[in-house]
């Protein structure tokens, strides 16, 4: 959480000096899919009680990085340190046992199972005689906290709306007792109230000392909750910014690699008062 408001030069992975050993620390992570180099020599740190936002263009490699951290993909090269120890994350189960919980971009829910079953999948209460009652009570409480709008916790996930599913996926990551939570575009499908709830939740989790890595395309959300913003571009580090004192324009420039604001500022709206450009304008506004 040390302040370093200017981006480090693109290309050279920038590693900020943190006051204490970060909870999660990646160095030199590379991952290719055939000819596509999704990640090249990526470094990233997440400290306890810190919210790190991971931003980048579509296809920049954010989800691939998330999947490496959560044991879905094995990196081709690089090291992962967790809680001070070098670890390998051979499987999603291993990640969970380490204390890394993940909300995937594609949610990874089992469509044929209902909400409670999905929430507790792999960590059912009373393995040999499922405690359905306790699980249902806990599910309702959890979903209530996220102001989820779900018809019934016994609905199969296949029958839920996009936002309802995302809420379930987020709720699932909160079960267990993770030390790090990784959220890949957690609010993409959420309504206004639910988004607010999730952001509030992230802050509460930070206060409880968890490390949080959040992928998002929404600069407003990022700047609202993140302490640090790491930018990926074409699979490489493209700077780490302190959330305080960085404008949305700076971030967008790092994301797109544009030196000017061409991408961001579109010509004014052709008719009517409100220009389409205001979408980004509002997002950029009010840099604190």
């Amino acid at each position, binding site marked *: 959480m040390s302040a370093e408001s200017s981006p480090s030069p693109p290309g050279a992975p920038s590693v900020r000096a943190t006051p204490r050993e970060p909870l999660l620390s990646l160095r030199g992570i590379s991952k290719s899919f055939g000819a596509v180099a999704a990640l090249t020599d990526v470094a990233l740190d997440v400290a306890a009680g810190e919210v790190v936002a991971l931003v980048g263009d579509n296809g920049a490699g954010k989800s691939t990085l998330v999947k490496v951290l*959560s044991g879905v993909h094995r990196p081709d090269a690089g090291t992962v340190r967790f809680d001070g120890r070098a670890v390998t994350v051979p499987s999603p*189960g291993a990640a969970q046992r380490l204390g890394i919980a993940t909300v995937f971009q594609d949610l*990874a829910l*089992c469509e044929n199972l209902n909400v409670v079953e*999905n929430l507790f999948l792999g960590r059912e209460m009373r393995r*040999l005689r499922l405690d359905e009652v*306790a699980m249902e009570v806990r599910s309702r409480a959890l979903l209530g906290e996220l102001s989820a709008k779900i018809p019934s916790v016994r609905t199969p996930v*296949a029958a839920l709306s996009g936002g309802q599913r995302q809420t379930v996926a987020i709720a699932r990551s909160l079960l267990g007792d993770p030390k790090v939570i990784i959220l890949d575009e957690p609010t993409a499908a959420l309504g206004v109230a639910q988004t607010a709830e999730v952001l509030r939740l992230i802050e509460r989790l930070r206060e409880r000392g968890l490390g949080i890595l959040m992928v998002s395309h929404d600069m407003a959300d990022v700047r609202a909750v993140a302490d640090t913003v790491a930018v990926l571009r074409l699979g490489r580090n493209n700077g780490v910014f302190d959330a305080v004192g960085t404008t949305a324009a700076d971030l967008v420039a790092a994301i797109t690699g544009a030196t000017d604001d061409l991408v961001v500022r579109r010509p004014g709206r052709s008719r009517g008062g409100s220009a389409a450009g205001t979408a980004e304008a509002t997002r950029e506004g009010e840099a604190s």
Partner: protein
Amino acid sequence: MSGRLRGGELGLLPVLAGLVVIWVVMQILNPVFLSSANLTNLALESVPSGIIALGVVCVLLVGQIDLSVGSVSGLGAAVLAVLFVDRGLPAWVAAGAALALAGVIGWLYAQVHHRIGVPSFVITLGGLLGFLGVQLWLLGPKGSINLPFDSGLVTFAQLQFLPPWAAYTLVVVGAAALYATGAARAGERRRAGLDAASRQFLAGRSLALLAGLGAAVWYLNRDRGVGWMFVFFLALVLALHYVLSRTSFGRSMYAVGGGREAARRAGVKVRAVLTTAFVLCATLACLGGMLSAARLAAANQSSGGGDVNLNAIAAAVIGGTSLFGGRGSAFAALLGVLVIQSISSGLTLLNLDSAYRFMVTGGVLLLAVSLDAVARRSRVSHGRA
């Protein structure tokens, strides 16, 4: 609970309706069909295929297939006969060895699947051929081995029936247990502030079970009664039902079948689940094969051949198990095998030429499943599209 009922267990009612239709039609065509004697036979004949179908349900649930259940059942029969009759080992040692061998076979399937990545269709096709070979080799030039009629195995499969008082006691205990567990769960839910089944509903359900099973037992007791082997099969069905619906392992099976990658990401040990499913399937196939041999009082080269494979898989599918994984239940095997055996037994009574028998079997099968499909469909059109 009630949600589960709506989504899952009620899903068996259409198959049950199909079964009833078959029974009525068959009874009209030949009044012997619903006689106590014939139903007693039907119950016993269903057991071997039914047990094999239980195993098939397990592999289908996790999205795999096992084409070798027939061969493995035949191999089980052969191993049992060779060890028990030729080598003179005690029956339980022989049966245990056969089951262990089957377990190893299932485990090997899983290893090949995991390590080499061959689709289970091909692995078990190899098994189908390979273990048929082993079976023939074991039985050697004799080709057929008789199991002694007075051995425990054969009497168990052929002649042991529950005494009436025991059968009625079982029925009463079953109905009481259904009510007790239901009431306990409902109470727990109510205390936790969740919706729960009403006491009337629970009582009604238990009484219905009591009446249904009681009548069945009374009717079967007019002939030889309820076979121990059938009770054993029912116990297996209930045990598998418990595992599938009330343990975290069963939950994982549905999850792996419904979305293997999603289950993996949720931390489910996918490989362990798949391995267990293959092992369960092979072991149950072996058990079914041994009981089939016991019923026949012989293991021979054609044990497990013919349509054992197709019948077992078909029973699972007819009962509502999906070939694509993630949907099915232990009761699917029970109902499916009853459908298949009822058709077969009913047509046997009709004295048809083979040509007509095949045609009618195909037609009736399709009809029975259509009923189920139509019911499911009307439900789906109100539910998921």
